[in-house]
């Protein structure tokens, strides 16, 4: 992961350089995109629908043209290269397997248009089908396959002509949860064993966190944060990322004291909490403190020494199997969530109970108020 991340900085394999895209000449769908993707990296573009991530992928594939800026592949400007000359493999959300061709013919298609001989073609098709464990399906029609099987064939077709770069546009969106998780693992595995570069678009944050080397979180046509999954989850740089990735508690307040990245925040009800300043510049500024539910503690023994604690009233406890989820009333507002592991010795809270909660200041991130 780190190797790929550093590679991205040295020699970018794919590079978006000040790319802008507008469809109507009035508004920008992609606003000044700068992104370097290293060779062999698995980069995910994650964001809500309409955030510009799919547009970026389509510009890279060549189906949309950049209104401004340059897109480079392996150091070469590909703005004016038509899609069929880019040599980029692509997997579509609806698989896009040609319905009038058998699986084998689908896989032969990219090889035939490259003028490859029959023997070589068959060897490659066999290798690609074995790669996705679909060796015996070459003579089937796509319509005779299940969704998961079609997805594997689509993957094999995108890989059969040995592209250096593979784009995936929400490829697992149509599969059920269990199959999706299985395919995530397989795609990740293929990426590692083939050493290809993958640009993956999804709106599913779980998928992004599991598979990626780095994730670019898109919103409103901009990359909000570009970081590894762990950094993104644990150290979100702004309120959008904090809220989009995983579950988060938000406590609005004012900066009372600011020393380096250590901040003291006064909540609306007057309580003080410790937090780490992220994109906060000065004392007195409005802020939104974000804390992950699983980092909230209510047992004094588990809290770091000297940490501020605040009162919380339990309003609801939900039994979720592996975890217990307590909904608390904190600093005058409802809906503060705390997750507890469901262990034998776990304290069982009940609604109406009043407890003291606290956390490591590193886990409370003081962000812009949005």
């Amino acid at each position: 992961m780190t190797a790929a991340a550093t590679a991205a900085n040295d020699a970018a394999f794919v590079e978006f350089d000040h790319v802008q895209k507008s469809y109507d000449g009035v508004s920008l769908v992609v606003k000044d995109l700068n992104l370097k993707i290293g060779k062999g990296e698995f980069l995910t573009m994650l964001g809500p629908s309409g955030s510009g991530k799919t547009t970026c992928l389509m510009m890279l594939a060549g189906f949309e043209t950049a209104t401004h800026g340059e897109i480079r592949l392996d150091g070469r400007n590909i703005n004016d290269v038509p899609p069929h000359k880019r040599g980029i493999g692509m997997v579509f959300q609806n698989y896009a397997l040609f319905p009038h061709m058998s699986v084998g013919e689908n896989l032969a298609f990219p090889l035939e248009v490259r003028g490859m001989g029959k023997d070589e073609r068959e060897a490659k098709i066999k290798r690609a089908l074995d790669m996705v464990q679909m060796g015996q399906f070459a003579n089937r029609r796509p319509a005779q396959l299940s969704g998961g099987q079609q997805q594997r064939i689509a993957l094999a077709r995108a890989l059969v002509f040995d592209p250096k770069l593979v784009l995936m546009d929400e490829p697992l969106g149509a599969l059920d949860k269990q199959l999706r998780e299985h395919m995530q693992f397989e795609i990740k595995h293929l990426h590692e064993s083939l050493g290809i570069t993958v640009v993956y678009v999804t709106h599913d944050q779980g998928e992004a966190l599991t598979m990626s080397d780095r994730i670019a979180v898109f919103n409103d046509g901009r990359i909000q944060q570009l970081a590894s999954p762990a950094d993104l989850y644990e150290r979100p740089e702004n309120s959008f990322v904090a809220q989009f990735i995983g579950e988060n508690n938000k406590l609005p307040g004012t900066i009372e004291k600011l020393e380096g990245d250590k901040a003291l925040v006064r909540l609306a009800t007057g309580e003080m909490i410790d937090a780490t300043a992220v994109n906060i510049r000065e004392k007195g500024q409005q802020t939104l403190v974000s804390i992950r539910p699983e980092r909230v503690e209510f047992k004094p023994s588990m809290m770091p020494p000297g940490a501020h604690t605040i009162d919380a009233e339990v309003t609801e406890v939900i039994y979720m199997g592996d975890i217990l989820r307590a909904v608390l009333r904190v600093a005058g507002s409802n809906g503060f969530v705390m997750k507890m592991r469901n262990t034998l010795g776990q304290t069982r809270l009940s609604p109406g109970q009043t407890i003291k909660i606290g956390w490591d200041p590193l886990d409370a991130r003081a962000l812009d108020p949005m």
Partner: protein
Amino acid sequence: MAEPLAAAGNAGAAPAPELLTTADGRPLRAALAKAQTRARRRAFLLVVPLLVFVLLTFLVPIGYMLQRSFQHDGFSSAAPALDAWFAANPKFDPANPPEEAYAALVDDLKRMQGDRTTGIAGTRINYTVPGTVSLFKSGARDAETLTPPFKQGLVATNPRWAEPKIWLAMAAASHNTTPEFYYVAADYKLTDNGWERGAPNERIYLYLFAKTFLVSGIITFICLILAFPVAHLLATLPMSRASLLMILVLLPFWTSLLVRTSAWIALLQEQGVVNNMLVKIGLVADGNRLAMMYNMTGTIVAMTHVLLPFMILPLYSVMRTIPVSYTRAARSLGATSWTTFRRVYLPQTLPGIAAGSLLVFILAVGYYITPALVGGADGQLISNLISFHMAKSNWSLAAALAGMLLVAILVLYWIYDKLIGIDRLKLG
């Protein structure tokens, strides 16, 4: 593997299912049928009005018309004596009929004069041997005064009464049911030696059939070439602009056929808009104006225009269902835009092409008004001839021609079903 093929594996091993019964012991199959009967009866009642309508206004008239193509009692009902004699002597010599045959003929001619059926009987014979109406009319008048021997007497009034083909025609017409109209429609002629194929320059019906099919084929092809890009545009444009374009496509439907055809006359006639423009820009000399109307060109142009929507709509309905990701996938896999079109897009539009072509071709084969208005002498199709015979009240020949047309279309339909499958037909 995440998904083993479970279904295929178990099917063979499953034991034969025992006869299931409902909780109260009735066989399950009977219970199911009974439960569904009510729903089925209600559904049937809903279609009854349409069924009756189709039966009364479509199937019955067509059946009646087709019956006319092989049934005609104009002669047999007017000439009972001859009917009886022909029935008794099926193998008579038409070159030299005996005296009894002439006696029966004279007897019948006298009866016709009394019943005023000479015209009907003469017309029936006239269908297979032209120019016999007057023969029967004068014969019926002369029969009053004839005395035996009738053979000499009748032939003396008109030598045509000795012609073998007249006797062959009367023998055939003495039956109610006859394939003769189909012989005529297939360009056979009744000669003294029986039915013979007409000379090549006399084969007007088959020639016209061939021409109709050829012209329909040309029109279908032009429609396809013109409709394909339009349908593709319709299928890919955003909805709001697509519906505007769709209105333009459907506009011909909302205009009277006569108005549309007249518009083409105004455009294409010798003093029309197109010719005037060509003369004005000097492409065509004033004395040498193009003949684009009242010939085959006029028929093809006007019919292509009229039938174009029938090609666009099925194509559009198929193209609309082809997601753009197929062509994108093909492009990303390295195919040029031409290869993408030829190998990925075109094959998927085949059901639409087939449906549109079948529709346009069948409509074109039976087209009548447009060729009648703009076809002139050269641009007439088989339907115009059918209508001509109906106007001349030779309904049986018209019905025989229409029957042949119907069979030809059913054969085409059958071929289509064999090649493409009728279940893949998508209309609009």
